[in-house]
């Protein structure tokens, strides 16, 4: 039998050549300028040879230093050869123009379920609080209720804030952190068989409904609705979509079909990542609109409602029609 040292001596040149080629590829990927002088065919052939050598070395129980070197060599080559670039402007625009709306349509059942779970508690709690405004106290503390009154008081310079000192930029930061957090929570909690998503959707729906019902009962509906109507086109839709994605992975766990449960989860999560990308982008838009447009007190309500109508129409139109032909 070939001894380890003979084995190493015999194939040393091939391994060194492969190592050199991999180093070139690595440098090339870091700085795009440097032209890699590597022939793909040769690298693939060397890689297959190294795989054979590793199999032989393992079967003959060769010492660790040989096995480790071959393992590292094959692992690096494997990564270099099967490396899949997923970035780029083309991939991103395809995501926005085709994949995101298409994925949403594909999962329409989940989206409608999530919408129902979000909107039903909102309407029910909203009506309850409207008929008996004191019920708001079972949702928030008295102090917070008073601050709602302040935020949406008529004639305020900027709506939706407690102090006029809070600037648009500060609120932009706050909305991003808060809203994206809620949406991600609705998605991630789906991992618990979907129950978590249902809970967070219903809880956020009920909270929103309570605030709306309370402010309507207080006679502040004109400022409140003109404030929320524009950005909610992006924000509510995004939260519902995040919840729908959570329901999808929860369902994949509960009913894996003919796949193994874990595999079913992995596949669902990979599919849903497209929706989560889209949701994140929508929430950024929502936060910008909320901070810089919705809060402007000097804009006439009619302008706000017309812009809101355009926003709602384009969001719904985007999910209904965008990318139908391409997909």
């Amino acid at each position, binding site marked *: 039998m070939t001894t380890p040292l003979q084995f190493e001596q015999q194939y040393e040149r091939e391994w060194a050549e492969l190592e050199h080629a991999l180093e070139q590829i690595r440098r090339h990927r870091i700085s795009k300028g440097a032209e890699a002088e590597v022939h793909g065919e040769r690298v693939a052939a060397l890689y297959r040879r190294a795989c054979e050598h590793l199999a032989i070395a393992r079967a003959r129980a060769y010492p660790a230093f040989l096995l480790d070197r071959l393992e590292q060599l094959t692992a690096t080559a*494997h*990564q270099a050869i099967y490396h899949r670039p997923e970035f780029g402007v083309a991939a991103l625009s395809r995501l926005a123009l085709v994949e995101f709306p298409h994925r949403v349509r594909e999962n329409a059942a989940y989206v409608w379920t999530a919408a129902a779970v979000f909107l039903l508690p909102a309407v029910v709690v909203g009506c309850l609080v409207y008929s008996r405004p004191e019920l708001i106290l079972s949702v928030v503390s008295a102090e917070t209720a008073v601050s709602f009154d302040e935020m949406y008081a008529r004639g305020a310079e900027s709506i939706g804030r407690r102090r006029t000192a809070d600037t648009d930029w500060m609120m932009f930061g706050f909305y991003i952190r808060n809203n994206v957090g809620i949406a991600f929570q609705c998605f991630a909690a789906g991992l618990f068989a979907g129950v978590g998503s249902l809970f967070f959707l219903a809880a956020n729906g009920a909270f929103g409904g309570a605030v709306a019902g309370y402010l309507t009962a207080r006679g502040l509906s004109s400022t409140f609705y003109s404030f929320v109507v524009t950005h909610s086109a992006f924000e509510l839709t995004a939260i519902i979509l995040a919840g729908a994605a959570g329901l999808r992975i929860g369902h994949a766990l509960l009913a894996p079909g003919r796949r193994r449960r874990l595999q079913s989860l992995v596949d669902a*999560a990979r599919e849903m990542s497209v929706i989560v990308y889209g949701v994140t982008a929508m929430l950024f838009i929502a936060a910008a609109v909320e901070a810089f447009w919705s809060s402007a007190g000097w804009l006439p309500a009619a302008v706000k409602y017309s812009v809101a109508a355009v926003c709602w129409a384009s969001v719904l139109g985007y999910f209904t029609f965008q990318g139908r032909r391409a997909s």
Partner: protein
Amino acid sequence: MQPLDTVVTAETPEGILLELRPAGLSARFYAFLLDWLLRLMILYLLSTFLVFLRGLGAGLLLIVFFALEWFYPVAFELRRAGATPGKQVFGLKVVMDNGLPITPAASFTRNLLRTADFLPFGYGFAILCLLLRRDCKRLGDLAAATVVVHESRVSRRIALSEIAPVIPARPLAPVDQAAVIALAARAPTLTAERLDELAALAASVSGDHGRAGTDVTRRVLGVAQWLLGRRT
């Protein structure tokens, strides 16, 4: 025989098994702690400057806070190192469980699902899941099909070339050969007494069964040299 190790294997299309060594709770905890401190430091440094910008500064700070909270790990995992600075310090790396570099979708998924891992408190589910599984995955890793592994390190070559090769006293099966050679590889890291003890266990390979001592050790290591292929 079930090896006493936590190695998980991933098969490549070429039919070889890549060995991944999943990182356990303590290594990942230290890495997390370091990342956490780093994030805290960034926020602290930024806040001292951004205070001067008033509202704009507060807004920017909140955005940075948001970005650090959700995208700090994603940004680093998608770089070449495939790990956050904390993980890099402890020699850890995130890869797909088929041995390939992590994809953006997977990195996004595993880091958003942190929210689920965090429940019920203090990363409770993550720790439970990590301890129960052989491949040490948390919930986010399960859904994203990723695994946190120790970076492989190359074992040392066998030195001791001043020892003359000794012909084995009996035929040795491949596993026995590997054991003797592994002993020789570890020799520089052991104390002389411990090396003698271990060599005594393997003394039958050089025909010194039942004996122990420095000479026996030299002969056992000599057998290792012979098995490696040295003849003179």
